[in-house]
């Protein structure tokens, strides 16, 4: 069995029928991590318990105990999700030594589906960034070309997946952090509808925008992973009680007659010609497969990026107030305790524990929530956010899904954009709207730039309608021809 090419279903079936053991699969990928991680810096922590966990899965199978659909599938988890007994840093000095006493619901559900957790993946600090350059643990690199960023904030997930250091990964997405790195590294990534996946045990960034989702090789693997982690959780009151469909069984690449919305505001992004070409090719292919196109307008997309930054920074400033140097996390040391005030204690701890980008966003958020500014900024953004959601609802009366590029360009070089936060922010124009409106979004690889870097297509679905974008994604995947190519670091 070629573990680098096999699907989740194939490997899980082989593990269940004892053609291969979970331990063998785990050892295979651990040795790939050992070989490739020095080149990519995708993992922050590798689990020392992985083999023991795999042995447990094998034992269950030998005893004919009930075992889930992800039996023996090795996963890497973004370091935003708490893993019991396994260090969880959020890419920050603040949590450098934090060992959670519990699993995030997503992690617990993966484990109960039979998955093996191999380790924790690199990311921008507290998921704030689009290049993985803000990580306290150093840059993660793009396996297609190590001079380029893997994207962010789930850069480690995307790089580890593209280089097949694991079979599957989980990322989180607040403004595009699953979809943009998936596009940059040529993998499939889904941000589910807000409320589909529990946020319990995920380090909080912006609570009304955050969602976790799979970042994997194929649409089928994505569907299988998604249905394993979705659904109501009593530990997160924002999770929906809607039934979770069997996305993988319902997967259907026949999209004849489906109506795909072309965003009129698409031209707002300054799209690179390579991306434009790939996008047009995707539209041609979808037409050949029988899809129909309708032009739709979501006028407020134009304001999505500033709206997103304001709301996410405001929520972040509130969420990150918990890092006080007392209960867990970094604490600053003082030489002279006699003159230290409580405010000094907090300010010094937080000043040293957070990186520049995190502090910048806390500052922005604090300002927007402060007395005299709340109505003009946070409240105003919330009002426009409702208008944006309503515009999307109208658009979805005319179409089944909306298509656009994921980002305006393929991956950029390391340090190329980090000096100008606003330019960096503007690359998120297509992805941020989906988080603001709570919609499902997905990146599907569909080609390469002239420099050989992957380019993804962005599909957005209505609330709780992941199935349609998965189906369109499967159709795109069937004609993309990108799966045959492997990255430089592999």
């Amino acid at each position: 069995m070629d573990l680098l090419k096999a699907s989740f279903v194939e490997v899980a079936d082989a593990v269940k029928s004892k053609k291969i053991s979970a331990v063998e699969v785990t050892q295979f990928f651990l040795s790939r991590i050992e070989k490739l991680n020095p080149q990519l810096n995708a993992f922050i922590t590798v689990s020392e318990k992985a083999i023991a966990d795999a042995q447990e899965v094998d034992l269950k199978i030998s005893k004919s105990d009930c075992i889930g659909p992800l039996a023996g599938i090795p996963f890497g988890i973004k370091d935003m999700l708490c893993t019991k007994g396994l260090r969880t840093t959020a890419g920050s000095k603040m949590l450098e030594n934090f060992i959670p006493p519990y699993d995030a619901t997503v992690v617990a559900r993966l484990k109960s589906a039979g998955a093996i957790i191999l380790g924790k993946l690199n990311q921008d600090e507290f998921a704030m960034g689009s290049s993985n350059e803000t990580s306290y643990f150093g840059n993660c690199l793009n396996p297609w070309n190590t001079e380029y960023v893997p994207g962010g904030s789930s850069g480690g997930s995307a790089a580890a997946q593209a280089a097949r250091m694991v079979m599957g990964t989980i990322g989180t997405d607040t403004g595009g952090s699953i979809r943009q790195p998936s596009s940059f590294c040529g993998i499939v990534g889904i941000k589910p509808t807000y409320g589909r996946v529990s946020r319990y045990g995920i380090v909080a960034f912006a609570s009304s925008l955050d969602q976790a989702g799979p970042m994997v090789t194929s649409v089928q693997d994505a569907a299988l992973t998604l249905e394993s982690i979705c659904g109501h959780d009593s530990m997160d009151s924002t999770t929906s009680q809607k039934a979770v469909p069997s996305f993988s069984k319902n997967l259907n690449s026949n999209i004849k007659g489906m109506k795909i919305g072309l965003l009129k505001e698409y031209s707002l992004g300054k799209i690179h010609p390579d991306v434009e070409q790939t996008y047009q090719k995707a539209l041609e292919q979808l037409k050949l497969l029988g899809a129909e196109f309708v032009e739709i307008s979501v006028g407020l997309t134009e304001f999505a990026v500033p709206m997103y930054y304001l709301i996410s920074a405001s929520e972040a400033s509130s969420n990150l107030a918990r890092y006080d140097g007392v209960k867990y996390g970094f604490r600053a040391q003082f030489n002279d305790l006699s003159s230290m005030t409580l405010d000094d204690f907090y300010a010094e701890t937080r000043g040293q524990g957070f990186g520049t980008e995190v502090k910048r966003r806390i500052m922005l958020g604090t300002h927007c929530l402060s007395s005299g500014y709340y109505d003009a900024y946070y409240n105003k953004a919330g009002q426009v956010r409702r208008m944006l959601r309503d515009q999307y609802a109208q658009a979805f009366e005319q179409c089944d899904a909306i298509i656009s590029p994921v980002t305006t360009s393929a991956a950029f070089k390391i340090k190329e954009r980090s000096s100008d936060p606003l330019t960096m922010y503007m690359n998120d124009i297509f992805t941020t709207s989906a988080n603001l409106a709570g919609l499902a979004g997905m990146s599907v690889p569909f080609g390469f730039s002239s420099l050989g870097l992957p380019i993804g297509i962005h599909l957005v679905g209505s609330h709780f309608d992941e199935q349609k974008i998965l189906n369109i994604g499967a159709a795109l995947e069937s004609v993309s021809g990108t799966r045959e190519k492997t990255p430089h670091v592999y």
Partner: protein
Amino acid sequence: MIDQKTIEHIAKLAKLKINPSETEEYGRQLSKVLNHFEQIAKIDTTGIEPLVTPTDIDFFAREDLVANDYTAEQMVSNAPEKAGQLFKVPPVV
């Protein structure tokens, strides 16, 4: 434009120690981001309720039951300093 004094005030509210070069940099960048937001200020939002949770969530509350999931030792295990089952902090008053 956000001046140095405002930045210092925000840093105080956020309980963040920032150095003079950060003060200057954040002032410049925050002004830029907020200027960008000025476009939104022009949109008429009269009578519109701000949206916080983007999907319609059915209200759900767990039963209020005692759950002894963790020991006191586990709860303090990540503290930078501890004394037995207690969080230890330097004297601040």
